[in-house]
């Protein structure tokens, strides 16, 4: 009888320690998860800011200004444009570069 009781007591103690450690681990992991989620949010915000920056740099007025003033580009006259038909368009596209 006493032996069984001692055995059960031991089992209880082991279980109790197990609960304590797993709780501790769970909290550690939870904090890690929290930190990662915060980072994800932070990165999302940064992505938004970069997207904003990208579209600010890529506004058509700015592109046109650079193309015209800096790169000296201009729209070709209609007479200079050759339009490739759909059938030859593929091969022409492949050769172009």
């Amino acid at each position: 009888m006493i032996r069984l009781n001692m055995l059960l007591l031991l089992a209880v103690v082991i279980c109790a320690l197990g609960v304590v450690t797993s709780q501790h681990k769970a909290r550690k992991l939870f904090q890690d998860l929290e930190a990662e989620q915060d980072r994800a949010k932070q990165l999302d915000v940064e992505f938004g800011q970069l997207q904003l920056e990208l579209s600010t740099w890529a506004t058509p007025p700015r592109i046109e200004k650079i193309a015209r003033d800096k790169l000296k580009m201009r729209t070709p006259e209609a007479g200079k444009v050759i339009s490739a038909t759909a059938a030859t368009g593929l091969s022409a596209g492949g050769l172009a570069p």
Partner: protein
Amino acid sequence: MMRFKGHLAHKFAESPVLRLRLPAWRSRLMALLILGCFGVLLGRSFYLQILNNDFLQEKGDSRYRRDLEVSASRGRIADRNGDVLAISTPMKSVWAIPADARLTPQQTRQLAQLLEVDDKEMARKLASDKNFVYLHRQIPPEVAEKVAALKLPGIGQNKEYRRFYPTGEMTAHIVGFTGVDDKGLEGIELAYQGQLLGRAGSRSVIKDRRGQIVEDVGSIKPPQDGKDIRLALDSKIQYLAYSQLKQAVLDNKAKAGGAIVIDAKTGEILALANWPTYNPNNREHLSGAQLRNRAVTDTFEPGSTLKPFTAALALEKGKFRFDSVIDCAPGRLTIGTATISDAHPHGALTVAQVIQKSSNVGVAKIAATFAPQEMWEMFDAVGFGQIPRLGFPGEVGGRLRPWKSWRPIEQATMSYGHGISVSLMQLVHAYTVFARDGDLLPLTLTRADGAPPIGAPVFSSQTAREVRAMLEMAVQNGGTAPKAQIPGYRVAGKTGTAYKLESGQYVKKYVASFVGFAPASDPRLIVAVMIDEPGGASHYGGDVGGPVFAGVMGGALRTLGIPPDAPLRLEASTLGVQVAQTPAVKEKL
């Protein structure tokens, strides 16, 4: 159990206490008292655990549980290619509780410097008798960190989103803007407020002594970010429309202008520009004139741009043919007491030439053969007098009076676009019947995916084809708008030059307009341009609106990669040198 009987006493150790014979009531009283105490305990626990449980639980929770709000961001607005037109990014707002904020003058100065506000203004705010004041709203996070590092008492911060519009004034009228509290105030921001707005979530957590979250308790309500809106707008075409319109308004010393580009196949609004405009990122000193989304909210008498509808009805009813001859001499027509005249007198013209030369007399003569009801029904069918219901704030339906009250002279003037008013949006919408095979396509602000929509038939495809041919003539040499020609493409369109109405009287101010589509062999785009009060050398729709149309349409066709449908005869004669060079270019390819 607790009673001690006298005769048993001697069995225990001799005790004087036990030898006393006490009255039985004393022990009973004792028992009763103890029972009473238990009763009180029971009652108390009932009071605490059952009656007051909720309240106490809440009090207990508040000692270690924290309810956090999880903020959600407002949806983005992007153009059809995914380029961002409006985006929210978190900022900080700095507030103060004046009663708690006891700052030294030096601290106040330091804070004012960081927040870039006036010293005196800051001191005034801090001295106010309000419970709560915002010192500066929406400052960048870096600055907010510096403010937090000062560790000033009574000064706090909260997170707020600020909306940015990278394309600025170019798309101001279509995108609109939001107020400081994320509420849409204009344009798409207002029209799609319900979808764009995010819903903040909440969660309750247990925090430890260091303020770190230890675990979630209770249910978590996840935040719902606002939906992103993908517009039909094409930034490149929008830029073309905006820059060309701006140039035209400035060149012609006009008061204002509007331009719309739509896709004739899908009904998508590819561009919508107005001048004057404003910068939605900086809305100080904003005037009503800048805010007006004229293309949608302002109506005007369209003038000759309505003539093709009269001609189409004539063809549709079988009363006239494409080449039926109408005598327009001597360029004047008297109906009742009023006289209609042409800007340039013409002789006998075919129906097609009436449109090409834009003869008021000719159109009025055609219109005289209709019953008022027929004409009203046609105007109604193409959407005049009806609010377009695109979802834009402040949309108007224009003015189309009921046919029963029409007088003959009114019917005549309406046939060439006076006595009826429309918005530019309605006009471009109505022109879908000619750009397509006679059906009126519903317009959409958002990108349309899936099967191309089918419009409501108004005219037969035969009629639409014939009117298209007439409109092509109007742009060719000999028509009213040779300036709307685009090399390499077949273009069709109609000019309009209308007098403005001011307090019921026609005055010597004009609205010049042009509506057209291209390529005429299989129309893909419709462009409508309206210039309000051109004050330059010419006020005619062909001279003022035509070049804008050509610039926008030419650029848009090239942007979309639509193949030219006209031989380059014109260029072959005028640009001989360049044509000679083309074989070399071909070899290089």
